[in-house]
């Protein structure tokens, strides 16, 4: 990806301190993308690891996407903004991409068994899960911004405790 695109590449980042496991992102996604309520059709996936860890993960727009390389049918294409496009005609639902993605970002449709993943609500222009997250745990930001947020949290903690 060209540097100019890297600078603007945004992904859905989840603050695991704020994420409380409500799963509303999943319901919203299914409504926006599938016009129905079924959280198993969502592109974003809410994960809970007992007792306190909660996160919602969607496609990470990897620089060298494993899914693209894994697909035996060449059905996966990386778009200019780093997101993934899956050719419905070429995909035969083998699921190799689903297994290879370390973030569990791909799913298989119930009917027809075609792989799908988050397209960041390209037609709307802004991921809707981010808009509706009640605790503002989801942000659609660049990785650089995400890094700065993390550092800021740590620093504020130190400052709060009277550190130098």
């Amino acid at each position, binding site marked *: 990806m060209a540097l100019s695109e890297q600078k603007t590449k945004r992904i859905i980042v989840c603050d695991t301190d704020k994420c409380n496991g409500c799963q509303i992102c999943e319901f*919203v996604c299914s409504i926006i993308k599938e016009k129905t309520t079924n959280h198993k059709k969502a592109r974003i996936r809410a994960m809970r690891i007992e007792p306190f860890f*909660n996160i919602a993960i969607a496609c990470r727009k990897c620089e060298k996407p494993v899914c693209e390389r894994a697909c035996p049918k060449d059905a996966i294409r990386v778009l200019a903004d780093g997101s993934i496009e899956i050719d419905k005609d070429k995909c035969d639902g083998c699921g190799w991409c689903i297994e290879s993605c370390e973030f569990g970002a791909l799913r298989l449709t119930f009917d027809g068994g075609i792989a799908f993943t988050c397209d960041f609500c390209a037609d709307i222009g802004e991921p809707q899960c981010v808009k509706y997250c009640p605790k503002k745990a989801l942000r659609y930001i660049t990785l650089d911004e995400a890094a700065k947020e993390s550092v800021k949290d740590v620093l504020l903690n130190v400052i709060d405790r009277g550190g130098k």
Partner: protein
Amino acid sequence: MKGYAGKYLKVDLCSRGLSTETLTEGMAKDYIGGLGFGARTLLDTVPRGTDPFSPQNVLAWWTGPVSGTILPTGSKFGVFALSPLTGVFGFGICSGGFANELKSAGWDGVVLTGKSDKPTYLFVDDGAPELRDASRYWGMTTWQTEDAIKEDLGDSAIRVAAMGPAGERLVRLANITTDKNRQVGRSGMGAVMGSKNLKAVAVRGTGDVEVGNLDELMKFSAELNERCQGPKTEKYRVYGTPANILVHNRLGCLPSYNFQKGSFERAEDVSGEQMSKTHVKKILACTNCPVGCDHVNEVKDGPYAGTVASVDYESLGQLGPLCGVGDLNAITKAVEVCDELGVDTISGGVIVAWAMECVQRGLLTKDDVDGIDLRFGNGDALVEAIRRMSLKEGKLGNLLAEGVKRASERVGKGSDKFAIHCKGMEWAAYSLRSLQTSTLGFCTSIRGADYLRSGSYQVDVAGKVDRLRLDASRGKIVYEGENQYAIIDSLIICKFTRGVYSSMNELAKAYTLVTGLEISGQELVKAGERIYNAAKCFNVRFGSTRKDDYPPPRAFDEPMTDDVVKGAKIDRRQYDEALDSYYDGRGWTRDGIPTKAKLLELGLTKEAEEVGA
């Protein structure tokens, strides 16, 4: 119909037969869902004289029309049966992903009858439900059961609602747990599962849930979502309900020492403020809830280090101040034991507090309590007593497992005078004598002593009425609350969102957007009245009359000694006047029986014939 699945599953545990039954539009409009359906089912299937532990008892699991949709807090279900604790209408309402999953699987509910001859669990796998062997899980805690079933079925997205060892042993206050921290808490529904050899209900739903108007519902839900971040829900989101501790303490309405007093000298140590500082590790949310009020504690030091439990006001109050315990570590541990072994924290706390008072008065010997130092304030003894009660271990465990009413009848010696319950249901953490409208609501509640049927404590703590006396204005406050709450419990949504809806008309709007069925706010309230009366008719069938709508003797006979509410007690004449105003307003007789006229007005024709006065 949209929202509703339009069908429910009937399971005969004796024959192991499963059948699909239709949910009619008439049923939907008259009874809405949840509590309404539960009341209708129990009325139709549980005859007079049924023993709660017999195969004849029916265990009904019902969602409401809004489960599976985006309406905030809509993922709730209720479990209904004749209660082994109270002998009248029993049920609990529970959140978590279960309700959404069941609706997604294509079912509005599941009605189980009979008794399985061996440990079994029901797996509702979309449209192909089946009964499966549960012997492997028998003896497991609620949490272990959930994990094991998901592992064995190879799908971590499956939702499981299970009873624990307490339910297996028919401990009368046994509950049902799902998603680790969510319970069908009160009235012993877990014990009914135990009596049927039903270890759990697991559900996998992959279907779409259709609604009447998706776009408008989405818009309305987004609006409600926003309101849920505002002042109406602040208390729940920040400190959680434990914020009540200090406030109630200051007002002299924080029950302590088995309701002997209304304040606790160590209130600061167990306050919501303190808990937030030293114990709350994270605040979680129920499935599809934008509020997020579940304060989960982690114990960092001492003998209970590592304990993790979700602690709310009731659990905190009844296992803390009520037992004289001022140690958050011990309280958190007691909650964890309740949750894992599967008993209700409120009932558990009240029963142990009663036992502590028995020990205080010398009515129980050291031998009676298995040598435990069961005195007020002893947190370790509290934890041990809860454990024994949940496992029916020893003399103490077997005594307490019966619930405070039966336990006090067994012990005698006047211990029933301070067994704090109504209809056999242990009293929740609201003062008997210094929140008097609350007490009236506790006693008219069809489930026994609780405020979840009317929320009538609100006018007391908000200063809208004189909380230290009763009069004929209180009946209306209680029954209006009951009718509204009956709707909330039928849709089913969370009572913590009641403040974000501007009126019943907005609730009616939500119903219409989800189901496509037109209904006005007024019709909704009428349905609430019908539902409440239906549940009442069930109680009348089981012998409930005016005599069962009174608080325990302590309310009348023992004036409070706390400085702030010195001398407070309930005046019998005032109570009767208030109770009369409740019955009159409801259109019931002065003996607390719905009249034929009222029941016919509500369309409860069969009931008018059977129990109408």
